[in-house]
């Protein structure tokens, strides 16, 4: 009886002490977006874990297509990332019906920021990365955001996920400007794999999309399956 009492947590204490750490690390994710020559690439890992310790799926989609030249990747709490992806699809569908054209990446990024900020004091626990090409000019655009919508557009790369520091480091060393689509694929794939290898919450393979004006390259990466 004594032993049983010890193993049960006291009433009022959180059932799972790990939750107290960070809701953003509950599921696990790693996402990178990079700008190349007239193309953008976006890559993510495929792990879906629960409670930080358990891996439940290894084919979890974190990058969602909005239209042919616009993709959004979401890290953080999986339920929020799924719901947000559906919300963004909703918004874009209506935009397309009313305006008769696809959204520009910058416009979409502002929509994402807006949706997130609406929940300023009870936020979605997801951090997005937007990557796309202007539907008319084909100019590349990427941006990252925090969970309440603060945008950080850059001209080189953005990362988000559990192991951001590693991802930043590896991208910083390997990134070069004006890479062609195939080269960009190599760089972003290697960066992703290197970045997730030392992180237990992300990994189990990866998926990369390289978006050019007339072509889309989508490939699945095989990495360390742990």
């Amino acid at each position, binding site marked *: 009886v004594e032993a049983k009492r010890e193993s049960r947590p006291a009433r009022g204490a959180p059932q799972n002490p790990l939750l107290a750490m960070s809701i953003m690390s509950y599921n696990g994710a790693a996402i990178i977006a990079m700008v190349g020559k007239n193309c953008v690439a976006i890559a993510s890992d495929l792990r879906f874990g629960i409670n930080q310790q358990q891996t439940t799926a290894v084919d979890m989609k974190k990058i969602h297509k909005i239209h042919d030249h616009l993709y959004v990747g979401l890290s953080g709490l999986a339920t929020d990332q799924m719901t947000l992806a559906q919300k963004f699809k*909703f918004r874009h569908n*209506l935009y397309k*019906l009313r305006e008769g054209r696809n959204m520009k990446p910058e416009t979409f990024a502002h929509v994402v920021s807006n949706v997130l900020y609406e929940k300023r004091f009870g936020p979605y626990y997801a951090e997005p990365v937007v990557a796309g090409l202007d539907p008319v000019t084909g100019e590349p655009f990427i941006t990252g955001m925090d969970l309440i919508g603060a945008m950080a557009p850059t001209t080189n790369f953005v990362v988000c996920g559990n192991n951001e520091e590693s991802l930043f480091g590896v991208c910083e060393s390997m990134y070069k400007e004006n890479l062609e689509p195939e080269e960009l694929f190599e760089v972003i794939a290697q960066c992703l794999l290197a970045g997730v290898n030392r992180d237990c919450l992300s990994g189990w393979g990866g998926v990369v999309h390289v978006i050019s004006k007339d072509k889309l390259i989508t490939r699945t990466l095989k990495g360390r399956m742990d």
Partner: protein
Amino acid sequence: RSSTHIRAQGRVDAPQASSTMARRYDSHTTTFSPEGRLYQVEYAMEAISHAGAAVGVRTDHGVVLAAEKKILSKLLETGTSSEKMHKLDDHLGVAVAGINSDANILINSARLTAQRYLMTYQEPVPMEQLVQTLCDQKQGYTQYGGLRPFGVSFLFGGWDKNCGFQLYQSDPSGNYAGWMATAIGANATAAQAILKTEYKEGMTLLEAKQLATKVLKQTMDSTKLEAEKVEMSEVGWVNAETKENVEYRVLQTKELTALCDEANAEAEAKAAAGKK
């Protein structure tokens, strides 16, 4: 007695003295007439009978919607928006007959309904559900609020997983029905009569387009059908063999011209044969 009745209600009667009993029951949409009619709803349908015709034909391979454009002017900027045809979702389109501004409100509402369904169920909204929701909205304007009904009739063409390709018609009263082929707007009864005789089961999508063009030609005022006066849209398989995806598509001028020329030629041949 009747005048005091009106004064007590505080209504301002119509300026011209009217003899028919009906006039007293006109002003309020939410009031039945003694004969059990809703005059405002009927007047709305009257408005629609002056609008450009729209024809719909349903086949097992797709649904065709064709319409007569009423606003024709060289000065009009065509752009991407259409006068009669509107997309509600990837698998659904409507043809409008009636007051276009009223239609725009309902179309926007329908688009929102479709997206909300998609958001909740992560699958495209079944056609009848969408038609029903829209018609419930139309019905509300015949029963509550004292607002006038929407002066629009719709032809919905689309596809869903459960019932395949479907064609629905709705009117200002909020009634709707599923059809194999139907028409709304000007000369709708004449168009319906032609459809009744000419419609066949098992038509291909092309035959349906040809039928719709023919019916339009016969109900429009002009003798020769021109592509600029007509709008046509279809909901059909993107790839007829794989049958993976349906798509709503507005027909391009080239295809329209071909259909119109064909209809014109057929009519001329018939007239020539008739003369002999």
